[in-house]
């Protein structure tokens, strides 16, 4: 993979932060990035735009015969994720129970190691997605544990 190092580096903004494209002429979002808008062609005005980090599972599969570099992770879940702006992308689904991985399950982006160039080479990081466990519980404030003291303030 050493010869692909420039490619890994070039994709960092996309893979770390979901930086995609937006056409200011027709309003469509694209991921991965595109140099021209396929709808508007020469009339299009492409700018960079961060994609939403939440979405839902559009379709999914379980990979048993993994490609080189992913053997240790097999079997793993792979899904087409539909982001909140309608953009589709392919991603591994991690940190989720198999039964929770269903079409329309809400997912959010997480940051993970994607691949590494052997033990000595560079590490490629990027996005994967996980099923949002319990949307309600995820915004619950903490409950104190144990008895709280009532010491007087100075």
């Amino acid at each position, binding site marked *: 993979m050493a010869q692909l190092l420039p490619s890994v580096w070039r994709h960092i903004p996309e893979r770390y932060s979901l930086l995609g494209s937006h056409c200011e002429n027709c309003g469509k979002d694209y991921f991965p990035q595109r140099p021209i808008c396929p709808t508007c062609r020469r009339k299009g005005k492409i700018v960079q735009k961060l994609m939403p980090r939440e979405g839902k599972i559009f379709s999914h599969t379980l990979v048993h015969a993994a490609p080189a570099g992913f053997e*240790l992770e097999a079997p793993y879940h792979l899904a087409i994720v539909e982001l909140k702006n309608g953009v589709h992308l392919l991603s591994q689904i*991690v940190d989720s129970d198999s039964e929770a991985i269903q079409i329309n399950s809400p997912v959010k982006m997480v940051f993970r*190691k994607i691949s590494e160039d052997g033990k000595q080479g560079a*590490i490629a990081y990027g996005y994967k997605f996980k099923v949002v466990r319990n949307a309600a*519980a*995820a*915004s619950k404030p*903490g409950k*104190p544990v144990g008895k709280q*003291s009532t010491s007087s303030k100075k």
Partner: protein
Amino acid sequence: MNRSGIVGYGTSVPRMRIKVGEIAKVWGKDGERVSSGLGIIEKSVPALDEDSATLAVEAARVAVEAGKINPQKIGAVFVGSESKPYAVKPTATVVAQAVGASVHMTAADLEFACKAGTAAIQACMGMVASGMIEYGLAIGSDTAQGKPGDALEYSAGGGAAAYVIGKPAESIAVIEDTYSFTTDTPDFWRRQHEEFPEHGGRFTAEPAYFKHVVSATRGLLEKTGMKIGDFDFVVFHQPNGKFPGRAAKILGVPDEKIKQGLITPILGNTYSASSMVGLASVLDVAKAGERILMTSYGSGAGSDSFWFTVTDKIEEEGRRQPESVFEMLKDKVNVDYATYAKHRRKIKSL
């Protein structure tokens, strides 16, 4: 002292856990005895695709969001860790890029065994208070290593905590003061190119952990004129579930004041993140006006002690992390030793 404070905070922990009893079984030990001796029920297990950089990024993203800051205004990113994915190449640059920081900032990785994260807080405090930067990001993140069969294997876990340090007026907790106590004490180390750390067994207790934690805490009290009873919450570095309790006893802290920040029993020792995850758990519930004392410990050896006062900003919508530490720890899956050995690459061919 020009003050600074915690503007945002976030934590991140792996989803997999292994019970201490499951590890003990492999090495022919009595699991219940080991578990109760260490005060640890289970520890986190970072997956194959997790390392101290990914955990740091996840925690940092939560901290930046909870801080409600523009990441482009971050002037410094410091990551404290002793389990860096690269021996040479900073983790801090990965974090900076992933949180959307600008290129006009400084960054570095720090190492001081388990206290590099709190040293990062101190570095950010100085830079914010001097006006060098507007915000600093201080992170403690580790995927701790323990040699198979060694006592450390029962406790070495993974996790990260991130803190956005900024001006007191924007802070959910003001850092009133800090005091450090540092000596040259070789109680725990990992030599260059070695895979697993070594330690001095019982030597890691009295002349190492307790001497430094107690001295730094007493030093902070003396420097500030505070009494230990003035604090509502106390957080110590937690290499196991027992040491913080003993340190609390020596310093006259009742057990109920350390409970909220004692996470190691169900997470394991997250090294650079250890006391910082404990502090995050306290911030999950602390109310305006409450005082928090935190003392870290790093082998080698040193302790950083801090006094935080919680402000009313903590009550504002979305200023705490969205999921509390205890809530986050409920989402888990327990694995057996074989799965753990694979994910931690303890099998020779991996």
